[in-house]
Every structure is written in structure tokens, then in C-alpha cells.
């Protein structure tokens, strides 16, 4: 292959990676519109408790604070994974940071599921009132996104182990990190507008 051709190939693969990342931003922003509307529905429903329990009866700040810390830490660790990858650190350090992020994600989900089950036990299932229906749409939608993110991390760990750090695997991990950071941004909205303002 001539120098011109290899240069041309490098240029093309560069543009493709940029385009892939931009395309993923478009997806993230459409997802943001989805969450924004779920927030709007929730906001219109906060007083629609139909005589059932309200925010102050069903939310506890302790678990939410831990979940917030765990998700923020995981946002940092996935950043470390992309740094380990971009700067050609050992494959082991990339896999380690991905595994730590996965562990934090699973811990977050475990805490959230425990809280939601506790709400059922306290007589606050989604069928109780409009407020609880809106809550059980908004928060578990975020939880499902985190679940999808965890599945994605497992997939990327397997791909790094089988394909190594090829160009495709690298851009996939970059998009995974965008997705994960985005979930933490949405969580900032949830812990502020649902939990903190619900208990204020």
C-alpha cells in the first residue's frame, strides 16, 4: 500500500470515528428529551397522591446519597478506563477500570432495587396514585439505562479479551463512556428534583 493510500485510510477511519461519536451524541440528546418529558410528567404529578403516601413518607436520603456517590465514582472510573485505553496503558488496567465501573453500576442497581421493593412493602406501589406511577416510570427508566450500560460493559470486557484493542473496540468503549457519563448527568436531575426537592 502506498503512503498516499495508507494516509487516506487513516483519514477515513478518523472521520468515521468522529462521525460515530457525533451520531452517538445525537442518540444521547434524543434520550435527554425522553428524560426531560418524564421529569415534566413527574413534576405535574407531585401533588397527585390520591390520599396515598407522598414524597416525605416514601423517600429516604441515606440510600440516595450512597447511590449518588457510587454513580459519581463510576463516572470517574469509566473516565480512567478511557484514559488507560487512549494512552496505551496495559490491557490489564483498561480491564480493571471497566470491571470497577461494572461493580459500582451493579451496586447502584442493587441499592435502587432494594429501595423500590421497600416502597412496595410500605404500601406505595405504582398503582397507588398518579404521583407513584410517575415516580415508577421516571426512576426505573434511568435504572434500565444503567442496566443496559452494565450489559454493555460486560460486552466490551469480552471484546477486549477476544479482539484486543482494535479501532472498532476503541470507539465502542468511547461511546460507552459517553453513555455512562450521560446517565450520571440524568441522575443529577433525579436526586435533585425527585429526592432532594421532594424532601425539602
Amino acid at each position, binding site marked *: 500500500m502506498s503512503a498516499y493510500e495508507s494516509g487516506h485510510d487513516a483519514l477515513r477511519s478518523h472521520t468515521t470515528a468522529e462521525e460515530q461519536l*457525533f451520531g452517538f*451524541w*445525537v442518540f444521547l*440528546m434524543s434520550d*435527554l*428529551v425522553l428524560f*426531560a*418529558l418524564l*421529569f*415534566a*410528567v413527574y*413534576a*405535574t404529578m407531585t401533588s397527585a397522591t390520591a390520599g396515598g403516601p407522598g414524597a416525605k413518607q416514601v423517600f429516604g*436520603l441515606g440510600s440516595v*446519597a450512597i447511590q*449518588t*456517590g457510587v454513580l*459519581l465514582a463510576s*463516572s*470517574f472510573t469509566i*473516565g*480512567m478506563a478511557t*484514559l488507560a485505553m*487512549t*494512552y496505551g496503558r496495559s490491557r490489564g488496567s483498561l480491564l480493571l477500570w471497566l470491571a470497577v465501573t461494572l461493580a459500582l453500576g451493579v451496586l447502584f442497581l442493587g441499592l435502587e432495587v432494594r429501595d423500590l421493593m421497600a416502597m412496595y412493602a410500605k404500601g406505595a406501589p405504582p398503582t397507588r396514585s398518579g404521583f407513584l406511577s410517575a415516580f415508577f416510570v421516571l426512576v426505573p427508566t434511568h435504572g434500565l439505562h444503567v442496566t443496559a450500560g452494565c450489559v454493555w460493559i460486560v460486552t466490551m470486557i469480552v471484546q477486549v479479551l477476544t479482539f484486543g484493542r482494535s479501532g472498532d473496540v476503541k470507539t465502542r468503549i468511547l461511546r460507552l463512556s*459517553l453513555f455512562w*457519563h*450521560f446517565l*450520571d*448527568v440524568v441522575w*443529577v*436531575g433525579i*436526586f*435533585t*428534583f425527585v429526592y*432532594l*426537592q421532594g*424532601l*425539602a
Partner: protein
Amino acid sequence: MNADYRRELQSYLAGLAIAAVLTVAAFGCVVWTDWPRPAVLWVTAALAATQVAVHLRYFLHLTWRRSNLDRLQLVAFTILLVVLMAGGTLWILGNLRERMM
């Protein structure tokens, strides 16, 4: 290469530190103060907006650089859509509730 690595690492660490401070401030505002409710709502909302900006800047690398122009336009357009749709929902349904009272 190594200087770039250190610079990016410092950027992530700075983002983590600022985000942690803003989060603690938001929780503290609810737990440790007895401010009136409207004050708490405004302060926590402002802290959340700031934290989102910090996440975008330090974790999602959305800066004002020219190479980011496409992404900035995309984000700005999305914010416009959100203001129209979410803001419109709140406006209309809030108005409806007042009339129903």
C-alpha cells in the same frame, strides 16, 4: 504523550472534586439547613444546573472549542426542544390545575 495524560487525568480529578462538592452542598442544603422551602428549591436547582455543566465540561469534554461546534449546536437545539416541550407541559398543566382548584 505523558504530559497530555497527566493533563487529562487532572481534568477528570478536578471534575470529580467539583462535582462532589456541589453534590454535598445540595444534600447539605436539605439536611443541615432550615431555610424556607422556596429557597431550598431554588438553591438545589441552581446547584444541579451547575453540576450538569461541570459534568459536560470535565467528563463529556464539551468545550467551547471550534472543533466542538457541531456538538454545541446539537446540545443547544436539544435544550430548545426541552424548554418548549417540558416547559410547555408544566405551563399548560399548571394552568389547568389552578383553574380546576
